[in-house]
């Protein structure tokens, strides 16, 4: 009886997404056909480019890394009842710190460089998260304002560094010099171009799960997020827990920035995060604030981004049309989430 109900419950979770995927594919085919492309070729190309080939899979994994780390950052905040919409700024702050560390560490022993660079990224993001964290814990300032404003600060900081002191004079655009080779992440799967960042992200997912569900801190954080006044009466230091969560959340986002620098771009660039922070919120919601469910959700998202990008090459869609396709698929997915929640 109970298992039956549980199985039914599971189906109720699955079918809206299955339906959404079907609707999304049909809409995608229709859009491609409308824009003058060959729909079947487009769909085949999409699958091949994201999951069906080594190189495609590699790209998908590389894209998964910042999305997963970012969504873990959002999840950690949401579980404590705070809405971190500053993931983008924290990614940039982490990227800046990682790049700076890579530039400064040229005399350090080679084996130490990469760990320090990654830790610097983590610390940079944590600093960016600590400001809203402290303001919220001490003064009750809404984290939403502070995190959004710090996004701008971080973007302008990157702009300054990449066009100013760290600028690569030979490039002629807003990018910095390349970081030294010992500061770069090794390849996990060289032929596919997949770097080892995905391992860090997966470890982080397990780590966040452990923190939330297997530590007293995580228990108190979830209690504070669920009902702060009951948690307080139960002896939970609510403000402190929430503040710490924002700092840790920033650290995860900062790690994403460091991975993007040392695994993918090898330098700091403007546009390092094409809105990962916003997508991370969507992933966090789709995965129902669960760090392990965030893994497939982030991967699916990455596959969608990589696959639709390929439509430019496979059927010659203009890049703006690709954005339209991405947006339509996203809306259908979100509608499915709405249906799932509304389901009795």
């Amino acid at each position: 009886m109970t298992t039956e109900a549980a199985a039914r419950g599971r189906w109720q979770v699955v079918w809206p997404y299955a339906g959404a995927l079907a609707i999304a594919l049909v809409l995608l085919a229709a859009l491609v056909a409308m824009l003058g492309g060959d729909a079947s070729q487009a769909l085949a190309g999409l699958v091949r480019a994201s999951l069906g080939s080594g190189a495609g899979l590699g790209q998908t994994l590389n894209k998964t890394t910042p999305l997963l780390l970012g969504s873990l950052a959002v999840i950690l905040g949401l579980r404590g009842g705070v809405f971190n919409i500053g993931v983008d700024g924290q990614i940039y702050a982490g990227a800046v710190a990682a790049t700076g560390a890579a530039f400064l560490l040229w005399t350090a022993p080679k084996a130490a460089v990469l760990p320090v660079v990654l830790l610097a990224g983590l610390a940079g993001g944590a600093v960016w998260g600590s400001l809203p964290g402290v303001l919220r814990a001490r003064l009750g300032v809404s984290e939403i304002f502070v995190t959004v404003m710090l996004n701008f600060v971080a973007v302008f900081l990157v702009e300054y560094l990449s066009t100013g002191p760290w600028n690569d004079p030979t490039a002629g655009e807003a990018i910095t010099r390349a970081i030294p080779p010992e500061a770069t992440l090794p390849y996990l799967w060289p032929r596919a171009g997949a770097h080892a960042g995905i391992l860090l992200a997966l470890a982080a997912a397990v780590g966040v799960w452990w923190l939330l569900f297997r530590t007293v801190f995580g228990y108190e954080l979830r209690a504070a997020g669920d009902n702060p006044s009951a948690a307080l009466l139960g002896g939970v230091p609510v403000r402190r827990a929430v503040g710490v969560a924002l700092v840790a959340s920033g650290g995860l986002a900062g790690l994403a920035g460091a991975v993007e620098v040392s695994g993918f771009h090898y330098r700091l660039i403007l546009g390092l995060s094409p809105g990962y922070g916003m997508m991370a919120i969507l992933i966090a919601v789709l995965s129902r604030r669960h760090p392990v469910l965030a893994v497939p959700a982030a991967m699916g998202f990455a596959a969608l981004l990589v696959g639709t990008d390929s439509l430019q090459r496979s059927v010659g869609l203009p890049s703006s049309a690709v954005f339209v396709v991405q947006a339509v698929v996203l809306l259908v997915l979100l509608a499915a989430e709405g249906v799932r929640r509304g389901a009795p």
Partner: protein
Amino acid sequence: MSPPLVRLRGVYKRFGPVVALDGADFELAAGEIHGLLGENGAGKTTLMNVLAGLYRADAGDLEVLGRPVSIREPRDAVQLGVGMVHQHFELVGHFTALENVILGREGSAWLRPDRLRREVEALMERVGLAVPLDRRVRDLPVGVQQKVEILKALYRGARVLILDEPTTLLTPQEVDALLASLRTLVEAGVSVVFITHKLHEVLRSCDRVTVMRRGRRVVTVDRREADPVRLVEWMVGTAPPPPPAREATRPGSPVLELEAVRVVDERGVAVLDGCSLVVREGELVGVAGVSGNGQQALAAVVAGTARPAAGVLRIRGRPAERHGVLDRMRAGVLTIPEDRLRDGILPRMSVAENVVLGRHRLYFPGVRYDPETSRRLARHAIEEFRIVCPGPDAAAGQLSGGNLQRLIAARVFDAAREREARLLVAHNPTRGLDVPSTEFLHARLVEFCAKGGAVLLISEDLDELLKLADRIGVLYRGRVVAEFAREQFDRYAIGRAMTGGVPA
């Protein structure tokens, strides 16, 4: 004699197992201010909610001007000219006063602000209520917001205005202003029902008084025939106090001592002011009082969620004014909060995770949280406290009120064993519970005392206090104005102290 403006006859209403109205009668004459008096839970508000269309009576007749009517929803009541102002206002904070008054009555698709404004201004003139129409409601003081609510009801054509405990949130000056404006309203042709449990307000402002007790009308009298002594008797009844449910214990050393404690809330109002009280080991001290006289602040200051602005608070002989919740817990203070949902439960977390709240640091002194331990404790609690739920992993928010209270009891009374708790603060612990759950909880309180624990039982249910307490302190306007030892227990004397009369 002409028929009364409104007549309610034999109104019966139950909520689940609780009978709220047990054949209640009520008549309102045209052009009067009618006080509706009774203790908490006497059925005053429920009866008026029936008249206003918010509840449908299970049985009973309604008449307006001698004609039988049926009121199925609030709209019917509005059409019959019945308007109700609730204790908690239903205003849109970021709308102006004018926008709130005309809300839902804008007239047509096009807002015609000038005409509507002239209408509202004329209304204000006629009934003698003036509010700044262009100010946002959320920027207005509570007393003015209340006027906006009254104007809203009148603008919708109310001839019968029901005010539910209108003075609870007001300052004394605002109360004076309100009572004065009621008189003007009556002169403008409105009849008023004034729900309250404060004697002096009834005696000051009403033409007639109906006293309710346990879902029925006790009496309706003219103000001339009403004096405080008789009103209190009607409210609380003349039955002798119930026999005590427990043997008196020899009290030990003081566990909780309050001396002239003052607590100021966020509005700057002193909700506790000069409150003094002692609870000793093995003693159950009851705090009686009409709600809103400082009970919440008293519970909060003892639990450690509020800090005293002045005065002395000692727990087991040690000054504890500056201690927070965690210090209190370490000192052995347990709480059963008044509002279970707001302060007691983590609704989206599991029963198991709820059971360990407050003692989680005890069971998990290190870094690790072990869900299996919580589940085991929860299974134990479900069995011992007979919590009806699908299992330890069910979300606590799905449980019914009685089961939530059992869950909280499981949390508290197990911690009592674990930590040798010294003091339990319980605020309205049995409100809304059925009889078996109530008796179950009472037995637990008694057992706790018998083991040497001290209990501070803050309750609006006088019978509960008479049954359980060794002593009863009466809280009125933020201080304990009278104390009664068990041999002095007397409903009338306690009731009089509760309603602001000086104890005999």
